[in-house]
């Protein structure tokens, strides 16, 4: 413990350092969990997110009591706002509002693995490539998984489409059925207003090794300080093995999608 404390730098808020120590993960002597999540990196990330979460976006959270204090669960929600600010705010809400704090572990886009610095940052903060093997292993270890079934198509929504939902993949539902994991739906509001995308350049994205580059009315993908909301719904439990026919799984996915749409609509009434 003394060893890990010595490594935490001035970049870390002391309150956050104490909260990170209370995350129930099997930290090793060098402050790393078996997946490579590093205490120091999480503390640094949460210190940065705290500014955005508490002061810049003044995030309003509801229903966080639906997220279990421990044990496996999947947070399933909507994307918008060009650069996945919403994922950061969901992670911050689980870290700052839950007792004990929990680390929501996202399933990142595969391209991130090849991007220097981003790949290391993502791994140290518990955000892994969206491979089924990773998801199953994390869930079997009782982790809190965060999945955006719209993927990059979700963050690529233009301002006028910000509260719509594009097609959901079905992989998350098969994983939930296979591992017997409850789904906690959530709706994020405000991300599309914070970073209103008016155009996505896919050719520029290809040049940078990312899916696309979003442009705002002020060109750069820099968010403005609008209030955001993260609203969690009651857990949804589905029975099955994960080997069901597509129509059956699609039916379950549609129910989750409807619940998320309702949470987004409700969230707007609370802003």
């Amino acid at each position: 413990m003394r060893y890990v404390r010595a490594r935490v730098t001035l970049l870390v808020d002391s309150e956050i350092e104490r909260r990170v120590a209370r995350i129930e993960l099997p930290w090793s002597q060098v402050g790393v969990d078996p997946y490579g999540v590093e205490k120091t990196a999480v503390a640094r990330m949460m210190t940065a997110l705290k500014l955005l979460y508490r002061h810049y976006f003044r995030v309003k959270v509801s229903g966080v009591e639906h997220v279990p204090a421990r044990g496996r669960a999947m947070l399933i929600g909507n994307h918008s706002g060009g650069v996945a600010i919403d994922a950061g705010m969901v992670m911050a809400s689980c870290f700052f509002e839950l007792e004990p704090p929990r680390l929501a572990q996202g399933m990142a886009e595969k391209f991130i693995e090849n991007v220097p610095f981003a790949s290391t940052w993502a791994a140290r903060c518990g955000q892994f490539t969206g491979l089924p093997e990773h998801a199953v292993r994390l869930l079997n270890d009782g982790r809190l998984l965060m999945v955006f079934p719209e993927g990059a198509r979700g963050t690529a929504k233009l301002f006028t489409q910000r509260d719509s939902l594009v097609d959901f993949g079905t992989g998350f539902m098969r994983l939930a059925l296979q591992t017997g994991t409850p789904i906690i739906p959530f709706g994020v509001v405000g991300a599309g207003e914070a970073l209103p995308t008016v155009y996505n350049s896919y050719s520029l994205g290809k040049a940078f090794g990312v899916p696309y580059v979003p442009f705002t009315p002020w060109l750069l993908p820099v968010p403005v300080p609008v209030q955001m909301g993260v609203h969690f719904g009651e857990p949804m439990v589905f029975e099955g093995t994960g080997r069901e026919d597509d129509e059956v799984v699609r039916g379950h996915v549609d129910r989750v999608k409807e619940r998320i749409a309702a949470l987004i609509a409700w969230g707007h009434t609370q802003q």
Partner: protein
Amino acid sequence: MKVLIPGISTPIARMFAARLAARGDQVVGIDRRGWPDAPANVEVHAVDVRKRAAEDVFRKSRPDVVVHMATVSHFAEATEERYRINLGGTQTVFEHCATYGVGHVVFVGRHTFYGAGPESPLYHVEDEPPLALASFPELADLVAADLHASNALWRAPQMTTTVLRFCYSLGSTGHGTLAGFVRGRRVPTVMGFDPLFQFLHEEDFVSALELAVDKRPRGVFNVAGPPPVPLSIVIRETGRTRVPLPEPVLAAMLGRFGLPRIARGAIEHLKFPVIVDASAFRAATGFAHRIDELTAMHAFRAAFPLGD
């Protein structure tokens, strides 16, 4: 029990031989490098495992168990000779085992079998194929040797075959791929990447081998101990200096300016982790590591200080 160890001259094989001899097993070794100061109760034959003289050792000693450790990494030998040693040697050892009625053969392989790549799962299990050979062709001979050994499970069902895919070792002998990589004062890394490394202290490595011999698990098993550690922490805790370089610069500087010599393909292993799930081996043998990752790194640091 009589145990024959091809490749007995490596530091870890010597530790293993000494451990077996100390508990009363009969130990016979084959290694062309010899072992001049071997313990009195360890019989060493300074012959090449691929030559006829080695076959004589099999025929005369009639071992109960063969633990095949006569493989080399890409650091040690050039490509053609490495193929002859790793694949040709493994083929010969398994042929002799079948011919001379060896009951149990243990192949000591490496976890790098699975390869490193951006789309690989973090934890590898035994039934996965080697996926990243294209980016690291220097591993092909070891992968081929591993697959040849694994084939013995159905090719020679009369023998019990145990294929072990060990993670790196680290400790006071300074032997092994990871130890060789962090041996110098400055350790190069690929800027922007910090992969996890999984290693086992040499004493635990030997304990795992001992359990494999005693429990005779049949099949292919990953072997690992403490949880993995980011390369940056390995470098720091072994007292070395990290030198992050952009990938093209690193590729050009390898083997120069005091930096270690590694194959081009190994750069992928400095970007992406190769981590194994060793739960099957633990379940089959009851193996549990005794020495944690910090102690292993500090043991290496103490054995190879840089005068800091």
